[in-house]
């Protein structure tokens, strides 16, 4: 953990969920393709050209995932709010995992969707 900053700001409360969509700044090329697919304007172009788009209205995200689809660099990930992450059970072992939980197993199913 980095050193605790001595600076604090008067900022409005964060919305929840705060990170319905995240953009990996190391992968993003600032092409804004995702902003052109967002019906909610959850993702908007960065006023600074070439910089990653701004996830400005995460509270309105519909999770349509079309930003994920549009990204040529695979830089975008969706994140369910806590109240929508339920469980799955591995039949062979009886293990129970939660979607995005602490012990989630690695991906083992790689079939693409049909069509």
């Amino acid at each position, binding site marked *: 953990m980095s050193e605790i900053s001595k600076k604090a700001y008067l900022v409005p409360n964060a919305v929840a969920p705060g990170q319905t969509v995240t953009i990996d700044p190391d992968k993003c090329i600032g092409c804004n393709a995702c902003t052109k697919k967002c019906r909610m304007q959850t993702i908007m172009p960065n006023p600074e050209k070439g910089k990653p788009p701004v996830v*400005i209205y995460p*509270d309105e995200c519909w999770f349509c995932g079309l930003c994920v689809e549009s990204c040529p660099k695979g830089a975008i990930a969706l994140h369910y709010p806590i109240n929508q992450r339920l469980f799955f059970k591995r039949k062979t072992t009886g293990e129970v995992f939660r979607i995005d939980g602490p012990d989630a197993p690695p991906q*083992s199913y790689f079939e693409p969707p049909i069509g």
Partner: protein
Amino acid sequence: MTSDLNYGSVPPEWPFEIRYGHENRVETDVLVIGAGVAGSMAGLIAARRGVRVAVVDKAPIDVSGSGGAGLDHYGGCISNPDCAVTPEEYMELAKNGPFPADHRMYINIKGAWDNLLELERLGLKFRDEDDEFAGAPFRDDKTKILYAYDYKTKDTIRLRGGHHIKKIMRQALAKEENVTLFERVMITRLLTEGGRPGTRVIGATGLHEETGEFYVFSAKAVIICTAGVSMQGTSTWTFNSEMFANGYRSDPRNTGDGIAMAWEAGAEMNSEHQFGQALNVGPFGWPWYGIGNPDNTWHGCTIVDNKGKEVPWVDGLDQPISTLEERWLPGKGQVYMGYMRPIPYFDPKLIESGEYELPFWADLSSLPEHERRGIWGLMVGNEGRTRFAIYDYYNKAGFNPETDMLQCPVMTPESFTYRRKDWFQGEPNMARFWKADTLAGMSTDWNQMTNVPGLFAAGSESNQGGAAAGSSGAYAGNRAAEYAMETPRVPLDEAQIAAEKERVYAPVRRMGDRDARISWKELWMGLNRVMQQDCGEFRTEATLRHGLMWLQSIREKEMQMTFARNPHELARVLEVESRYTVGEIYLHLGLANYEREKMGVPEDKMMYTKLINGRRVLTFKDREWWLKPPYAPTYLENYMKSRDKELQGRRV
């Protein structure tokens, strides 16, 4: 969040040039409002008749509408050559179904197969060309069509690649030379002859949600394809200011704009079929189709309790069935399955006694490969909004349909026994006051035209949703084009435009006003409170009147204090203003029912309600008026007569 741009810095500037008030005038023959599956097809087909078409959507058209994130099946594809029932037989059977069996349903199912073939020509590869499902019981090996739910009747076709349906439609529209596309433009009001309600609709105004520019459209015919509020009914009663979208099945931009503007233009609403309960629990549900619902998208999936005990199945008539195959066949004595599909029978007593240990689990892994891939790869892979939010997301989170079972939500015991209700996304296990009425939408005739001349409707706006929306869109596109060919243009009423411009920009004009402290979210919550109190589970004539008074009071005070700091917030405020009108429609329709009672109108009359100059006007028509004079006595005759000019190939 700490890495966010706005932490301890000035907010980023709006990324587009602001042009509030700048006016664009557009002249067209046919104006299509809302370019989802219905509107896109309406625009395309109208343009092919040789008229100029403006297609407007408040979102980008390749993703807009409820089908913009995919469509996994074409329900009600009755006119496909292998369907075991004819459209005429279906109309009889549908009388007991959940949707109004009227001329609109006939238009939809009759044109369904042609519409699907049109989509195929445009590029939708819905057949199993790769033979991935060769030998599966839901596949026709000759046509390579994949059916869903009822493998005997074959009334529903799985849309392999249905995820791409809107991209395909957008491409087709862009290629059509008579079509001009307006994206991110939100229509705010219909313009009428002389600016009065009940006269001919001759155009509309709009707002660009990136630049804030103003649009004025002059048109000879207008088609509304904005999906009504039937799918979003609950948002009139409930709204969680955050986290509101993931629980919604339909497009969250479906805010009732179309219904509201049609009502204000004097269109009649049909209060005949209020389904009583929305299939939609709004912001409180689980992600749609991500909970193993065995009565719909996960149809046929084996369900076990927490100890692994399998839940037995019953057919569509609630008779026990024992084989896997019967889950996809009509029950004994059932002509076709329709919405009375086989389901697992969860005896509520066994849940209460603990004999079934909660939670239940949906076990895809126990199904044969073709059914598992049919559900997980084909349906969930293409269903609205699920390719990424469920299929891709769950796979990445480690879920494996070959080895894992997915948890089903805990619901009240009786909720497990319902068909096509709480199972859709998991009823939250608590009070349910948000389960609201749904509106049947505006009334249309055999030309899909409303009582307001020049105003047409298609798609779920007129109860014709899903993939089938394209069928009603094509039909309405043809009729609107014909109307535009025969009808002269009427000059717009400048006073009406000026008044609307004033209303549209009022929330941004208020910036800096110290009393402008109401956000669009608070305004929305105000509506919810009124509807919960005065139009809730228990309501009386007096509460409905009280509700109208309450909404009017908010309109005069808090709505005049609502601010918008950029075009996004401005569009949201205007959407919430539409929601207020929708709330008023519910209240008026409720009051109309009391009026009807007092007037002693016989039960066999259908009622249509409109508002003209603030006064409710009720119209009563005979049941099945669409098969009575001046119309012909059969569905087919009327259908062919309405399409007469189209089939003659007449062009301007």
